[in-house]
């Protein structure tokens, strides 16, 4: 009897010790996550199914995002912030690239676009090589990691007015917006990510993070069209220091700011041509508010 008890205790103890390395920092268990295996996504006229994404996730995504979707894949230890951000923890239900207001869930289209586009200057590749159905299935899989989708609807996408024509007056007005809401505090007066607050930035998980550098050829992670840039500062990048300016920038002013930001970027643009002719000086951080 005693020997049997001892043997069982040893076996259980060994099992516990062997299980230790697999214990992750994730908060939700496989058991909890699997209750949402019926999650669906709707992208255009395609319906994605969680069940069909299990194999593609294992093949393409688990190496970084981990089997529990918490961003703790095998590759994660080699990604060092701020240069390389860690993979997203899907269990938290917090996403950077959204068309919806800060503090709300992204739409299925937002997640689909993020997978398709990838994230420039990060370890997340463009997955446009996967079929639309596969990507839609993976959107459903991403959603099933977080309980938020079970109880909350995605936010209402913000309204983006039609883009006006670029004019020198609009670029000048954009410079005024840049000065008024003080983007330069992090992004620097020439968009070089060297503002006074840039070096101390941390993301919501306490990891160092750098503001976007407009000048080094990088593409914004949430898209590089004018509409994408509009969305970025009008919804904020949740999980990062980048706030939403929706309450402080009017829609028309927002387009002016987009045009001004283009003048920082190394890619050739109409805005850069006009800015050259305007010979605009960078914003003066020491000038009093409202006097630029």
């Amino acid at each position, binding site marked *: 009897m005693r020997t049997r008890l001892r043997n069982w205790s040893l076996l259980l103890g060994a099992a516990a010790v062997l299980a230790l390395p697999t214990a992750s920092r994730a908060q939700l268990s496989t058991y909890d996550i699997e209750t949402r295996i019926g999650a669906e996504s709707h992208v255009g006229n395609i319906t994605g199914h969680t069940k069909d994404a299990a194999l593609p996730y294992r093949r393409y995504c688990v190496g970084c995002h981990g089997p529990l979707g918490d961003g703790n894949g095998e590759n994660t230890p080699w990604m060092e912030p701020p240069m390389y951000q860690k993979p997203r923890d899907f*269990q938290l239900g917090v996403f950077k690239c959204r068309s919806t207001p*800060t*503090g709300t869930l992204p739409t299925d289209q937002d997640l689909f676009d993020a997978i398709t586009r990838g994230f420039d200057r990060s370890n997340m590749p463009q997955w446009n090589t996967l079929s639309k159905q596969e990507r839609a299935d993976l959107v459903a899989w991403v959603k099933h990691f977080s309980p938020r989708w079970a109880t909350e609807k995605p936010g209402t996408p913000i309204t983006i007015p039609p883009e006006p024509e670029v004019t020198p007056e609009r670029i000048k007005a954009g410079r005024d917006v840049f000065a*008024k*809401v003080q983007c330069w505090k992090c992004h620097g007066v020439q968009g070089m990510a060297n503002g006074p607050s840039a070096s101390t930035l941390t993301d919501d998980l306490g990891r160092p993070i750098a503001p976007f550098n407009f000048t080094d050829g990088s593409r914004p992670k949430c898209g590089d069209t004018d509409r994408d840039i509009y969305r970025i500062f009008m919804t904020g990048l949740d999980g990062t220091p980048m706030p*939403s*300016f929706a309450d402080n920038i009017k829609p028309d002013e927002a387009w002016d700011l987009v045009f001004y930001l283009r003048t920082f970027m190394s890619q050739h643009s109409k805005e850069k041509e006009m800015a050259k002719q305007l010979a605009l000086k960078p914003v003066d951080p020491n000038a009093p*508010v409202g006097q630029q």
Partner: protein
Amino acid sequence: MKKRYNLVAVLSTVVLVCCGALILGQKVNAAGEGKITGTVKLDGAAPHMKGIDMSKDPYCSKAHATDPAHLETYVVGASGGLENVVLYISDGLPASAATEASTVPVFDQKNCMYTPHVLALDTNQKFKVVTSDQTAHNIHPLPNPMINVGWNQSQPPGAPPVEKSWKNVEVIPVQCNIHPWMHGWFVVVKGPYATTDDKGSYTIENVPPGSYTVTAWQEAAGTQTQKVTVAAGASATADFSFKAK
């Protein structure tokens, strides 16, 4: 037959009387609400609070030119009173009595510091974030995303107030990414609460008569509990003493 009839009659009467007592009882409680009051002191010398270097933002350092700012982990008054301690009822409050407060407190960004440093709130209680500064801030609470949903909004000079509320009980750190020294707290509790003033004194109002556990929360020294009994219309006392950690 008669016995059963009697039993049914007795049982029905008992049930009706109990229901009546419950309904009426609540009304009586509302009229006889009491308070919990007391003082929270720091045991021992006040720890030295580091000065804050605000030179990265000249507006902020100018605002503190004659009155340098210090970290506010422990704010100790003249007679050892500990400020910014939140007191709330952690046990014993019936669900019916936990009506959420209807005032809309204000959380201000003033001279590049949060005022108040700690804002106690009820679940779902609306609050307003404002800025009195001529330098841009962003208001960025950091709840645990599994408990409350965070958000991040800019507040440049002249920005309108941001009105929000929190769904669930949690101690939520607040920060400004532009000014990394700015630290504040949203302490979301259920039921009546109070925050100590600069003398360390507090009064929790609107407490129905009963026996409760009161919890005192201080951001670095942790929590302490005490049991109190509040009589109808009377005041119970609970004093606390924290040791700096």
